């Protein structure tokens, strides 16, 4: 079942990602991003990373995506305004992307990973364990991240403030 789930959600993520790139309308790109984020969240469920999956959903899909759609609406006069890159740029970018995909895939498939790559470990960290790690081993990064969020909040408010 897990294998089937992987294929379904991987297909959803990939197709939506292609949709993002192919769509010229930025709102549709954002909707496709919702598909990718949802697909990746489901993949996290498949990988037994439940906490991460729901965080992905609540932060990315519920927060960041709404923010982006807001940004789109505030910065475009009409949904149909699109800035197209030139044909040459697109061709170059596609070439680079294909090379990159092939290159990384080859690298990944030929690499020797330390353990048997096809035998998943039965023990996945539970929510409690992740939480405990956050407050013990990773306490400093956790606090730094919270400070960073505060700074971002102030900075964003500063940047979008009234100019006088």
């Amino acid at each position, binding site marked *: *079942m897990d294998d089937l789930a992987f294929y379904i959600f991987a297909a959803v993520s990939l197709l939506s990602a292609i949709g993002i790139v192919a769509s010229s309308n930025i*709102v*549709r790109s954002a*909707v496709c991003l919702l598909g990718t984020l949802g697909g990746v969240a489901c993949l996290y469920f498949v990988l037994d990373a439940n906490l991460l999956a729901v965080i992905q*959903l*609540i932060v990315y*899909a519920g927060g960041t995506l709404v923010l982006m*759609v807001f940004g789109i*609406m505030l910065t475009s006069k009409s*949904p149909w305004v699109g800035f197209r890159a030139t044909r040459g740029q697109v061709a170059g970018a596609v070439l680079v992307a294909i090379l990159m995909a092939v290159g990384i895939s080859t690298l990944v498939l030929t690499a020797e990973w330390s353990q048997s790559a096809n035998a998943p470990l039965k023990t996945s960290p539970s929510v409690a364990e992740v939480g405990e790690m956050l407050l013990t081993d990773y306490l400093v990064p956790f606090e730094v991240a919270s400070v960073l969020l505060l700074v971002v909040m102030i900075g964003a408010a500063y940047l979008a403030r009234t100019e006088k």
Partner: protein
Amino acid sequence: MSQITLPWIEKSPETLSGYRRKAILLLFVLAVGHLGIALVSLFAFKPGQLADWKIPFVLALVLGASLAGMAFTAGAFGVVFYRIIGKFLRWSYVAFALFLGGVVGACLIVWLHAEIFTFIKGLSAAEGEHRVWLLAVPYDHTVRNIYAGLEAIGVEVPVLAYALWPLQFEFIRDLVALGGIIGFISIIPAFGIWWERKVSARIQSRMGPMRVGGWHGWLQSPADGLKLIFKEDIIPPEGDPLLFRLAVYITFVPPICAFLALPFAAAWVFRDLDVALIFILAMLGIEVVGVILAGWASNNKWAVYGSMREACQMVSYEIPMGMSLLIPIMMAGSLKLTDIAGAQAGGFWNWFVFANPWCFIAFFTYYCAALASCKRAPFDLPESESELVAGFLTEYSGFRWSLFFFGEYAAMFIVAGLAVILFLGGWSSPIPEAWINSFLTAVGASPDGFFGTLARGLLAGGPIIFVLKATFLFYVQLWVRWTLPRVRIDQVLYACVQVMLPLVMVLLLANTLWILGTDHLQWGWLNVIDGILHWILVGIGVIVALAILCIALYGFKNNKRLVGQLAVVDQLPGS
């Protein structure tokens, strides 16, 4: 006279009764034929005779024939006794029971399946037969194996083994559970809308729907749904038709997904996730994307206004809502909803709402924030009729429009259910189970006998108690909606950012310190205060419950009061 000629109106009664006789005959013949086939095949296929790939066909033959036979029989009886059945359906309480029977039926199917599933899982696996069949699904039991298990308990019906064979797969179990959930979700809006109309009618001293279905218009919602399906489907061509269609599903599907993690009772949950609470919150949060898209794709300024309001409101109210929920999480020490509800079992004084003052306030902040995030009145700004025509729903019509309401009512039930699980003891009954047991013993019934089990199942906790509690909170949402005016958008945001958010932060901090003092540091004086406050809060809860009961009884006894005593008006020519 109408120019349209309807053949069945033109015909004489004799012809009609002739038709009826023919129909009855035909239906009976078909019924007998199909039931015969089913009966023959019930014992015809011995286990081991057939290859695995033929099992679905056998099932189709047997189940299809018997189902068709039963349907034809019912049809024939329907035609014979149509007058009596019509009268029967008009008979009030039976009709209502039939309607509510949907809930009970869904419960029964899920329960029955759970029993069967345990039975199959309990059988010993077939000797060395792990086969890979279709999508790499290994299975443990062959039909022969299941038949052996059936024979062991004295059921010698070969076809039953065929019928049980598919039930051993996890995904079939999931499908059945999903069917139960979807059935329940379809009942919520149908029942909820009808009930809302009755509640609003009661509040406004009128009757509400009274025609469709006989008793108090109980069929009104299905009738409306049918009408909506047949309505013209209008899609604004100047907007974005693709996103216009997609937005409905982005709004409608997440609240339904949230039901996957919502436990109705200890074992009555589709997936008992360890992060169920955040999952449900995330699902409620995704809904907003659909609403924004609906407004955007409609190419209507009112719709854009509605969706922008929705975005502002939901994104800001998610924060106090989530933070209020952190307080019971902290009390229970788990994100798993079954754990949280389990921690409150054994009498209503154990419910988290009465645990300490902070939880008590958090319950109300949660409920207010939940009202806002469900966009229910007084926070129904996204679709506020008098300002924004219909907000983001302006351009929607027909079935698409009704799907938004499916989503909304599902979300209403979800937030009510969450409140019940986190604050009001989930599915546990207000009375401790031990009291029920001793009561049963006192009246001479064995707690483990049939009636004892029934009584315990009904009273001591379970999905029915849960649904009842959630329905009460659902009712409060309706009550508030039909009583209060609507607030303004700046007041909504002010209430969130300036009032609710600081309040909830203080509650969170206070609760943390409180738990630290009582549970971890074990300060004696704080424990004493805690105990006193706990019982004061329990007292307040009892008083509130009694007050609501008294008001309800008073209203029920004086249900003519609002209409007034102006009897003479009936004598006027206009009446």
